[in-house]
């Protein structure tokens, strides 16, 4: 039953991820924390953070949620639910795309969905900010990372790890 539930939730999230994974963070938190009581906010935040320090796409955190809730089978179910629908959609649209080249609505869809995707991305940022900016230290870490990245192109992976180290040392 839980496996079916995991499958349904993550396949829905999969098809809602307009403009990338950050768009679905508010919905994922709502579903897993508030609606289904699978995780606490602190667990959700920690799992999000685990996803930030590994290579590749950031949203591999979904595998950890599946594992936490239903073991290795849960991880496999979430992996399939989260990646297969998008795989099929991307593959189909890729094959249609060239044929849609002369269709005037193709550009309208592309152009119209872009600001919605940006709004969702900002909502994702807001969700993580509400969960993680809990004291002066964390607010300062976020602002310093923002300032550094606006000023210089630095590999953000290094800054993310540094943020973790600073928070750990200052909280001792």
């Amino acid at each position, binding site marked *: 039953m839980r496996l079916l539930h995991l499958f349904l939730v993550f396949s829905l999230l*999969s098809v*809602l*991820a*307009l*403009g990338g994974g950050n768009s*679905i963070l*508010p919905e994922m938190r709502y579903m897993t924390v508030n609606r289904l009581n699978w995780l606490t906010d602190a667990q959700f935040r*920690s799992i999000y*953070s685990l996803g*930030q320090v590994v*290579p*590749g796409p950031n*949203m*591999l955190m979904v595998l*950890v949620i599946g594992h936490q809730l239903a073991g290795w089978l849960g*991880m496999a179910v979430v992996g399939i639910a989260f990646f297969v629908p*998008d*795989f099929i*959609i*991307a*593959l189909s*649209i890729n094959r249609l*795309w060239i044929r849609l080249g002369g269709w005037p*609505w193709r*550009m*309208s*869809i*592309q152009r*119209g*969905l*872009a600001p*919605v995707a*940006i*709004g*969702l*991305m900002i*909502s994702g*940022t*807001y969700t*993580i*900010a509400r969960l*993680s900016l809990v004291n002066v230290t964390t607010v300062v870490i*976020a602002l310093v*990372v*923002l300032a*550094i*990245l*606006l000023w210089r*192109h630095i590999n*953000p992976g*290094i*800054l993310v790890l*540094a*943020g*973790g*180290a*600073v*928070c*750990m040392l200052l*909280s001792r």
Partner: protein
Amino acid sequence: MDTETQAPNATSERNLRPSLLKIFRVFVSAGGLSFGGGAVAYLREYIVREQGWLDDEGFLGAMEISETVPGLIAVNMSVIVGDNLRGVPGAIVAVLGMLLPGSISVMALAILYQSNNSNPDVRHFLLGIAAAAVGLLATVAVQLGRRQFGKLPDAAIVAITFFAVSILKISLPVVLVTLGPISVWLYRPSASPERQPGEHLPFHRGPRHHLFRR
């Protein structure tokens, strides 16, 4: 996105029907070396500059599709590039390669975390990571916003979307099926015929690539 010329040997040695193993290896490299969400920049490095499987224009075309369809952009890119090179099997090995290094790492960390989650140092370390990630996400938002907030319909749609999801807490499916069509309608084909190709997508020349440019 910057437009340096391809490595000189890229075009002469390019093989547009690479083996599945070769595709897998290239995507494992891109998936395994990109930290902090820069997988797309690494893909460009490998696919355009090193392998010559796509030129810059082809890469941007694949990015357009990746950003318009749902899903993680780096994964969608893997599907499209893999499909264009070797069809469905190519797409499958590309996605598996992109996801494999991160999946193994994140599960290893998850198991470590599950046995140490009462350790305050671990909890504070992860809290700091989330806080730093907010700085990173905000950077992307600011840089996208610089391009997008100047124009009124765009800025309004961005603001309404944020307000609907984060303040009114309307569920995402409802937001997408209402605001999506409205926004597409605002950019309907007859609305602004003078648009230039290439200025449309907020992401593809956007900050992600600049952030991770090496």
